[in-house]
């Protein structure tokens, strides 16, 4: 029986193989179709349209081709470049701070595995499940003048007239909100890499007399470098494109239209009606984001490959 089947399949193989391949591809595309459809109409097409728009001048409904003039204007538009102050602050302060906190929390998750670690993971993850706009609304209540839960405390401390949400406090408030929203989620991702590290490593170190924190920072952290770099890139992208939080807080405090690049792009398009210019700025912002990610990724890979992983705080 076996021989016969083998013979049959051998004979039929060439033809059937091709068929199989085609069928498999068709099947694959069929399965991919829902994704591809959405991806092409919601991602590829808007980007292509954005590229096209960016090459046009516009006033009202009138549009005319101007080549790369919009891009030339962007390089001379101080308001666009000023808008990177907040992203830079977040990139240099919030992102490293959050990765650090998340790392510590992840170590605790692992340590507390048998003592309610699951519950903590759940609780810390919760803020991430709330849409940023809702987060913005709730935080704007928390920092509002008349309804803030901090108000009684501030009153007792003698700051009864003090405005919490002043323009100058906003970077710090953004920091708090973003840390609150993303630290638990980040810790969760780090934790999932952490448990993949073979137990033997830390057991060995323990036998050599290393403490918990020594093991954490000297043994485990270098092994987490890959995931930390990925998280850094994701959060760097988030920082450069920050929009929702300042957008919601704008209800309580006056902000310039170019407070962040994304806000400037939005306001240029929808408050000032300069859609084509906004499209060009959007492309430049995407390019900057891409370059930063590329830079971090290349440097980081180089470091990993050359083994410069020991010098870590």
């Amino acid at each position, binding site marked *: 029986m076996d021989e016969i089947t083998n013979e049959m399949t051998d004979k039929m193989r060439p033809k059937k193989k091709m068929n199989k391949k085609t069928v498999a591809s068709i099947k694959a595309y069929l399965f991919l179709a829902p994704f591809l459809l959405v991806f092409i109409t919601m991602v590829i097409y808007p980007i292509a349209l954005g590229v096209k728009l960016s090459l046009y001048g516009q*006033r*009202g*409904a*009138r549009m005319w081709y101007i080549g790369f003039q919009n891009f030339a204007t962007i390089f001379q538009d101080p308001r666009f470049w000023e808008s990177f102050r907040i992203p830079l602050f977040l990139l240099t302060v919030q992102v490293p701070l959050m990765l650090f906190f998340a790392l510590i929390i992840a170590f605790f998750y692992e340590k507390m595995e048998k003592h309610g670690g699951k519950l903590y993971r759940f609780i810390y993850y919760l803020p991430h499940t709330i849409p940023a706009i809702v987060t913005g609304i709730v935080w*704007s*209540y928390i920092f*509002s*003048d*008349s*309804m803030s839960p901090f108000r009684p405390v501030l009153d007792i401390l003698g700051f009864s007239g003090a405005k919490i949400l*002043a*323009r*100058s406090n906003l970077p710090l408030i953004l920091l708090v909100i973003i840390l609150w929203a993303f630290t638990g989620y980040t810790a969760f991702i780090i934790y999932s890499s952490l448990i993949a590290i073979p137990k033997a490593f830390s057991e060995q170190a323990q036998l050599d007399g290393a403490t918990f924190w020594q093991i954490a920072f000297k043994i485990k952290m270098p092994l987490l470098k890959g995931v930390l770099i990925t998280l850094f890139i994701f959060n760097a992208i988030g920082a450069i494109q920050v929009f929702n939080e300042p957008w919601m807080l704008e*209800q*309580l*405090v*006056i902000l*310039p*239209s170019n407070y962040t690049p994304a806000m400037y792009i939005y*306001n240029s398009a929808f*408050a*000032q*009606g300069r859609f084509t210019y906004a499209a060009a700025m959007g492309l430049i912002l995407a390019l900057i984001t891409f370059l930063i990610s590329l830079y971090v990724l290349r440097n980081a890979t180089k470091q990993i490959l050359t083994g410069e992983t020991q010098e870590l705080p």
Partner: protein
Amino acid sequence: MLMVEYSYGPQFMDLGAFQPINRWLSEKNFRKLYGEAAMGWCAMDGEIYGTPQDSGAMAMFYRKDLFDQYGLTVPKTRKDFIEQGRKFKKAAPPNLKYFAAPIGNAMWWIGQVWEAGGKVCDYSDGNWYIDFTNPVAVEVFETWGKWFDEGTLDLEMWWNADWYNSLNEGTTAVLEIGCWFAEWLRYNAPDSEGKWRVAIPPQWNPAKPHNGMIGGSGFYVTSHSKNPEAAAIFANWLNSHPTSLKCLHNYSNLPIMVSTRYEEVIDEVTGPDAFFGGQNIGETLWDAHQLVNTTFVALPIMSNVDESIGLLIQDYVDGKIKRFADILPRWEREVINTMKEFGYSNVVIDKLP
């Protein structure tokens, strides 16, 4: 057709987004049906693009309970308005505000100048006129500045949860804003039912009573309209025919009182209002609207005008600008720069038609 706020109408007209409807609604008829002032909101250089629906006439909303408690009388003049404020500040606990003007809201501040009988911009014979530092505007800003500096009045951001909360809780005694706000107050400050009353805004010059506006919207016929004749006739019927006015009053939340024919339905659509303690606010608001008898064309860059005053007033609040009236020349400079940036070469500066 598009429903657009009056202050943003000129931007659409200027960009060619609306089409003139004079063929179906003559200037003479328009003036007869909507009054002279409405030409500033629906027309440019005599080309009529739509019809006005609701009024943005300024009205003074005040808390009768607080006025009674602290022995205040309803002010009829600006002088009395601030006298009552000083009295209130002396008697009331520090967490109560007499009145807080908006940080931002260009049309509110332009409305204040308008109320005093002035304007800061206009359009005529193909030119945009900008003069933010004319004597009336300066006087208004200097006077308000004095009141802020002495601490009788406050400045705060409007339209956020804090602000509505203060209106609901009764920590603000007076609010001056467009008469459409009556409905907003009803829905956003439900706990304050029965405590508010409405009055005509205190006058700068009681001998020449006058009022300005903030907001209000018209219906304009777009350039895309395939049947502009029908659109024009409908827009006119919608905003002036007594049957439609009655309907709009019953089903919309806006003070549909710009049409002169509102007089024919006013007795039917107004009456004692429980939210305002039984006051017939319809009549007061109608009186307030009658006092809007000058007009101007708003600039075609109102969102920029709005943004820049917000930042400038915030600078004043933060102590970066010392004199409130110093906002005006800076505001003007920013507005002129934006006009240039948007390619307007037909701008006449420091002059008004």
